[in-house]
């Protein structure tokens, strides 16, 4: 719950950034550069810009509370509609990436912790050191070079699906799931292939911190008394590692996974640009580059809300992973 004030802070902060700093939105919204003084004055009244700043802030908060984030100049649609249309694409990408990252980082970390100083351990540590140094947009482009240009394994790296495939009826907005629901296997394969490279790019970026924390936390857990006891009573190796050691090592991993998820929300901007992925981040970026501020503001708010939800989720997962923690 402690992240709710932060959400409010972000609201006020983005408002101040967009309204108080240089640039008169009324001039911008007017029909053209030659709009008359009266016209600008009328628009200013319409937008409420003639009122004092605190009152404007209250009006803005009121609007946001009613789900009104303003209109996009680019698309001519309400920002809420635009964001709703594009959010599934971003979520599908981010969640798939998180899944890939967790599925590869946890075993890597565990393996490294089981044999400290071994080849695997050094390999994992080298990978972690390099992983945080390569920018997402560079690794994304290099993956395109290798898998699309050199090997020809990946499809054309633009968008969620090629233009020739007919879309399934939208139910969840997640293309891979919608294709499955529609029973279209070819379509699913096409969407899945399209998704793999961007998701792998984003995953590569976050495997390093996840594997590192898994390794550290597993090392502590493996050296503890309860693991020694479990070993001495002759439990199977698998049971000791997975049921006892990993279960106890998972708390810090959950914490880092929460932080990693919010890094991924930021990395979305870069990955969506590299792969022309039609998500919320590339929408906000296009808006930003054409000085259309309402979508940017809406995007930042959306990210802040997702961030709050993720924080709550992490707290809940904490409770599940460790019954001693109460929410």
């Amino acid at each position, binding site marked *: 719950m*402690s*992240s709710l*004030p*932060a959400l409010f*802070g*972000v609201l006020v902060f*983005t408002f101040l*950034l*967009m309204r108080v*700093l*240089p*640039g008169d939105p009324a001039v911008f919204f007017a029909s053209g550069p030659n709009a008359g003084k009266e016209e600008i004055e009328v628009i200013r009244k319409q937008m409420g810009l003639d009122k004092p700043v605190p009152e404007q802030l209250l009006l803005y908060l009121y609007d946001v509370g009613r789900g009104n984030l303003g209109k996009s100049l680019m698309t001519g649609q309400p920002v809420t509609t635009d964001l709703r249309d594009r959010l599934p694409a971003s979520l599908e990408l981010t969640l798939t990436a998180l899944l890939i990252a967790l599925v590869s980082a946890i075993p890597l970390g565990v393996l490294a912790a089981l044999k400290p100083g071994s080849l695997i351990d050094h390999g994992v540590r080298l990978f972690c*050191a*390099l992983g*945080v*140094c*390569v*920018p*997402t*947009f*560079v*690794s994304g*482009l*290099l993956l*395109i*070079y290798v898998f*699309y*240009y*050199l090997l020809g394994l990946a499809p*054309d*790296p633009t968008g969620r699906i090629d233009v020739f495939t007919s879309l399934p009826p939208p139910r969840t907005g997640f293309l891979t799931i919608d294709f499955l629901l529609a029973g279209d296997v070819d379509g699913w394969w096409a969407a899945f292939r399209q998704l793999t490279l961007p998701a792998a790019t984003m995953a590569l970026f976050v495997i390093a911190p996840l594997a590192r924390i898994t390794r550290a936390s597993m090392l502590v857990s493996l050296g503890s008394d309860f693991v020694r006891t479990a070993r001495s009573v002759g439990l199977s190796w698998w049971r000791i590692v997975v049921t006892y050691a990993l279960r106890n090592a998972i708390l810090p991993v959950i914490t880092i996974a*929460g*932080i990693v998820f*919010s*890094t991924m*929300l*930021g*990395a979305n*901007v*870069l990955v969506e*640009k*590299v792969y022309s992925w039609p998500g919320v981040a590339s929408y*906000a*970026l296009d808006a*930003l*580059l054409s000085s259309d*501020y309402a979508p*940017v*503001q809406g*995007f*930042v708010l959306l*990210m*802040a809300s997702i*961030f709050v939800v993720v*924080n709550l989720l992490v707290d809940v997962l904490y409770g599940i992973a460790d019954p001693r923690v109460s929410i």
Partner: protein
Amino acid sequence: MASTTLRHTVWILRGNPLTGIAAAGVVLLVLIAIFGPSIVPYDPIASNVSQALNPPSAAHLAGTDQLGRDNFSRLVVATRLDLVIAVSAVGISFVLGAVIGAFCGYAAGRLDRAVGRFVDVMMAFPLFVLAMAMVAALGNRVENIVIATAIINLPFYIRFARAEVNIRRNVGWVEAARASGESHVSVVLRFLLPNVLPAMAVQMSLNLGWAILNAAGLSFIGLGVRPPTPEWGIMVAEGARFISTGKWWLVAFPGLALMLAVLCFNLLGDGLRDILDPRMRT
């Protein structure tokens, strides 16, 4: 004292030669940033269309781009801008963060708790998104990249300085300084801050790598630095258009430069931590 520190440093370096290599790398980067523009073989912004998109060769070590500009010269010249952006951003947040954090940690109480809470939450926020929004609002200029990067780095320094000052606020020599009539401001600035600085320097080195990545990311998406200015992020962005036709050198070399720069700062930070703060040794 000095000789013990020196001996300790040498001992650490012997056990961990990577730190030495990283330090050499950083020195090399700084030298390239200073002298690079005067020693490059070609003018980094002079186009020569007859030589466009050539792969690496003896004449053009890192190939040429779509306008026939020499990729190697652009890489070298870009070092200065990338380092200046990162160093000034981290410098600003270091100074501001140290002062704000130190005063909060010294004052303790309700304000301190509120700031601490706020900073904790900020650190987990998608900071790149925040930086993007700030550059959008402040205007699309290089100075604003610096400001945005400085602001998103700020929470880390505030938290660090706060914690370090907090554990020292009631120790003997601080009490002594207060008893001898030093004002609170002077206690913080002249006594507490200098004791916190070495530990913060480590944080700074680690953060420089992060700042470089952030700034390059911002210019990759078209914020701040404008073409034809050579800068690693924007060079990758320009090369991105040619990657699916196999022109790898336009992305790979600036990407490699970014990676090596970040790697050097990270390894140096880890090594500095071992030297300055033996308790944290990993």
